């Protein structure tokens, strides 16, 4: 199968295979990405992040349906954690999106974090490009956001929605997490629960305390995703954000910055691999590890000697 060609012709199987090639780093992955790349840059990418149990998958399902009603096609990347011990994962976000499974205009792919933070960000970004090339108008990246890795993942998004729920007991804790600084929109889900007003106030206060003047003050919306309440209002807000990004030139800024960071990451990774491959194949690296461990050499000198040898 000529995966890129078939994908561009509309094959869902090719789309699935392209994502697998990239995830598993098959030999044909780069060629596929090169062929697809000219067809990317159109889709609006929406990141959905927040603590576990906040209702992200349900919210994604409802938003996707709303976009479908508007005639847009949707891609969804649902990221779930991989066990650091077994290397396995239960990818269960799709369970909230059963209605969407048979919609030809929707493509859902579940991904495990697979333990490599940088690797996942790159693979998610590549999967976004693959879905973009296949013609999807809107692409959701849905991931648990409690730490740095998830922050990196949603950097692939144009609009990031942080989903919070009232009454977790740790409202202040949620506000301390890094994810709040990347929110373009806040969604208080399960807003029918006690504590919704309090959470709203806390988020608003945090936004007010930001000393940096911003042109877009992240709106705080309320939803009860399971009841489909507040969904069209939330979508409206997302559309307002994309309009703001386009009008202010921010969209171009963000995407250029993202391209720059992606290129740097790719160069880093390739060079790292090239060098490591050269020195591990001879067993030289093991000897270096020994000598640094024994304090015969310091790591800085060792790295310098690696570079001068390999890059001779």
């Amino acid at each position, binding site marked *: 199968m000529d995966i890129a060609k078939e994908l561009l012709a509309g094959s*869902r*199987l090719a789309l*699935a295979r392209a994502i697998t090639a990239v995830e*598993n780093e098959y030999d044909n992955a780069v060629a596929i990405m090169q062929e697809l790349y000219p067809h990317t840059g159109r889709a609006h990418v929406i990141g959905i992040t927040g603590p576990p149990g906040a209702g992200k998958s349900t919210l994604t399902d409802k938003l996707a349906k709303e976009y479908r009603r508007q005639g847009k096609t949707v891609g969804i990347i649902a990221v779930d954690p991989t066990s650091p011990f077994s*290397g396995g994962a*239960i990818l*269960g976000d*799709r369970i909230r999106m059963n209605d969407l499974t048979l919609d030809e205009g929707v493509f859902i792919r579940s991904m495990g974090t697979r333990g490599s933070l940088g690797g996942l960000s790159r693979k998610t970004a590549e999967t976004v490009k693959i879905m973009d090339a296949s013609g999807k108008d809107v692409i959701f990246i849905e991931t648990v956001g409690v730490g740095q890795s998830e922050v990196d993942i949603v950097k692939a998004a144009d609009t990031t929605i942080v989903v919070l729920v009232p009454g977790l007991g740790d409202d202040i804790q949620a506000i301390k997490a890094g994810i709040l600084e990347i929110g373009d929109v806040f969604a208080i889900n399960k807003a029918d629960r006690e504590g919704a007003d309090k959470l709203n106030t806390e988020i608003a206060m945090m936004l007010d305390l930001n000393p940096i003047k911003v042109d877009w003050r992240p709106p705080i919306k309320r939803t009860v995703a399971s009841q489909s309440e507040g969904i069209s209002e939330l979508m409206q807000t997302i559309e307002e954000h994309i309009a703001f990004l386009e009008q202010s030139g921010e969209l171009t800024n963000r995407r250029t910055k993202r391209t720059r960071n992606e290129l740097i990451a790719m160069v880093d990774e390739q060079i790292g691999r090239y060098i490591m491959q050269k020195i591990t194949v001879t067993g030289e690296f093991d000897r270096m590890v020994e000598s640094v461990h024994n304090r015969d050499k310091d790591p800085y000198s060792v790295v310098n000697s690696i570079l001068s040898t390999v890059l001779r």
Partner: protein
Amino acid sequence: MEKRIRILVAKPGLDGHDRGAKVVARALRDAGFEVIYTGLRQTPEQIIEASLSEDVNVVALSLLSGAHNTLFPKIVAMLKEKGMNDVLVIGGGVIPDADIPFLKESGVSEVFTPGTPTASIIEFIKANVK
């Protein structure tokens, strides 16, 4: 090694609970597989579509309500129709031993009935996945 084996644990038909499927799903995760679980009351069409978009290596069908002779072969046939010829299909649940030869003829590679150690399922998958 970046490649992971991806397994769809699927509940076709109208079963009332998924306790067994969840036990198997956890065991598979602990064995290092990526398990996609889509919940109860899946139609064959939904199972095929999930298998396709998730590009799974294995489809593990769980059924307790007696419809296995109809649904399992149907799902195998639909997978082939979609060009997913390398997918390993296995089954489990409340399945009489007498029905197993028919299921195997229909393309289910193995059937794991109640009481089977989860380790057997894991070994089988590792040995037979393409």
